[in-house]
């Protein structure tokens, strides 16, 4: 289906926001200003955006340790995200969560997660909720190729089938879990989708570096899962991460030239640009303008995060319900 000019612009902008967010964090982290573990989503933008562009606030997503892209795509506010990663009081989670624990329930973003595989069961509950409510809403669990080996992920898939949860398991196969290749760690090597299928779900596959592949695949998946009673589905997207597992990872597990190659041939932003300009849907100038717009927003977000109020020791004791 042909997307409107507006929709194309929006999709590009969303991907670009994630890209810039991550590229900028990659730089800022070197300065030591940002604390904790940060896992960058750079390279996988087409998945988050290709999925979330189909969703509204009543559709839910559950994310991972590599969650910035999902958050931004689902509508978490840029400044709040940046401030959170900076550990500020003005962050989306008041500086208590940080990179791995961003949530925004009002946006249907039920949480990034530091525990690999922990999100899928939560999505099943949200998917049961959606089924009960009968309004054609869905819950989506993002998982990595590594997470697909966690018992919780398997349990969630079976339980979703049994309870006919309106739940979609989106597997982002970026080929690595930390420093280990998926060909080693996933017994079925390059076929995570078939494993999901064996649980009794319909499955799809798509190119996770191509926005249009993700978007069209998800259109089909969602058409299916939004029908009350159809139950869950799974999708595997083949994708790439452009940075290390976390910031600081020397990535010696990569092949020679691998990073250059994937940046060159598997960059969802480049592909998108080539596709829409080639088809005459948008011009380079349109996209450049969006780039500039995003760059400006990012600058502002970083400046705001840097200037934002810091948490106080008393904040440690806020938002608990039992104190000792």
């Amino acid at each position: 289906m042909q997307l409107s000019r507006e929709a194309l612009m929006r999709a590009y902008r969303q991907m670009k926001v994630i890209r810039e967010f991550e590229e900028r964090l990659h730089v800022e982290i070197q300065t030591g200003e940002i604390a904790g573990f940060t896992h960058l989503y750079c390279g996988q933008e087409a998945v988050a955006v290709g999925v979330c562009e189909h969703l509204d606030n009543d559709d839910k997503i559950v994310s991972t340790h590599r969650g910035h892209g999902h958050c931004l795509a689902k509508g978490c506010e840029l400044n709040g995200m940046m401030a959170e990663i900076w550990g500020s009081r003005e962050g989306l989670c008041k500086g208590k969560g940080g990179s791995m624990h961003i949530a925004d329930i009002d946006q249907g973003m039920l949480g990034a997660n530091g525990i690999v595989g922990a999100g899928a069961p939560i999505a099943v509950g949200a998917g049961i909720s959606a089924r009960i409510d009968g309004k054609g809403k869905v819950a989506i669990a993002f998982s990595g190729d590594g997470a697909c080996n966690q018992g919780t992920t398997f349990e969630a898939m079976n339980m979703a089938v049994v309870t006919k949860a309106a739940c979609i398991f989106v597997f982002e196969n970026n080929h690595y879990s930390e420093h280990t290749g998926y060909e080693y760690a996933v017994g079925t090597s390059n076929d995570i989708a078939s494993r999901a299928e064996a649980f009794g779900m319909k499955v799809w596959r798509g190119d996770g570096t191509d926005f249009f592949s993700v978007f069209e695949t998800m259109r089909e998946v969602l058409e299916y899962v939004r029908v009350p009673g159809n139950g869950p589905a799974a999708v595997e997207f083949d994708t790439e991460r452009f940075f290390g597992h976390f910031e600081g990872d020397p990535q010696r597990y990569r092949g020679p030239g691998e990073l250059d190659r994937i940046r060159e041939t598997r960059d969802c932003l480049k592909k998108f640009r080539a596709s829409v300009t080639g088809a005459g849907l948008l011009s380079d100038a349109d996209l450049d303008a969006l780039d500039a717009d995003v760059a400006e927003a990012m600058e502002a977000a970083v400046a705001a995060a840097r200037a934002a109020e810091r948490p106080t020791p008393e904040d440690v004791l806020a938002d608990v319900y039992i104190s000792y």
Partner: protein
Amino acid sequence: MAKMMYRDAVVSTIAEEMERDPNVVVLGEDVVGGMGTAGGPEAIGGIWSTSTGLFGKFGADRVIDTPISESAIIGAASGLALTGKRPIAELMFADFIGVSLDQIWNQMGKFRYMFGGKTKCPAVIRMAYGAGYNAAAQHSQSVHQILTGMPGLKVVMPSTPADVKGLLRTAIRDDDPVIFLEHKALYGMSGEVPDDPEFMIPFGHARLSRAGQDVTIVSSGLLLGFCEAVADKLAAEGIGCDVIDLRSTSPLDEEAILDSVEVTGRLIVVDEAPPRCGLAGDICALVANKAFASLKAPPQAVTPPHTPIPFARELESAYLPSTDKIEAAVRKVLAYR
């Protein structure tokens, strides 16, 4: 007031709350029973009969039978709770936190704080705990000590049918995750239960089940009855025991304990968990710290030994704190000079 069993107090409270609030849903293994069988739904309920009749009354959308997948059960409860429902999940045995702890400890217990206070997760996790059934090392354990130590969880342990009613209603209406521990050896206990459909017992309010001036005994669950028996026996000898039923271990009614010890100066905590890093030590330490000046004798924990729970009848009885051991502890603190 109606007389009912502990287990019936569980199921009737759930039914009443489901009636009142359409968002309350129940999930767990065999909570319907008979799904996918010739006998059909409710052919048989769960093994504790704590969900009997719910499926018939509220239907498949609100009473959800699950596969043997405890992590997914608790995770699903979180997902339901984050999206407007008020799930009551059942772990058939508390021992199964072993296969689902992450979802309890690192997930639902942390959402509110970790997400900056904006998130409600109104889930109740019911679990049958405790020894007394000769169910051996993997089906007899107490877990309140583990869960009480985990910030973000409320932990409730009713000792009577009336307390089941009042505390479970509070739990279901609470906006945060509540661990509701039902002692399996108490399911058949009978007692008076208030009829008031709004009867609720707030968390963190202990109950004084026996009053005395000489010794403070803190307990809950199955062992509370043992403590009461000891108190009654000693009362006949003129020894007065305050017996405090904690009702909830988190929040903890520190005041009730400290007030009592200020009078008695002597403390015994009787608890079913193993001795190390348990609730008994926790409360002894609390008292030693906050009522130091009142103490006339060393605070004394009475717990099972630091071993797994053995199977044979003789062994399980010897493992559990007996009335004899409790009585001996009371006499010991009384004799202390």
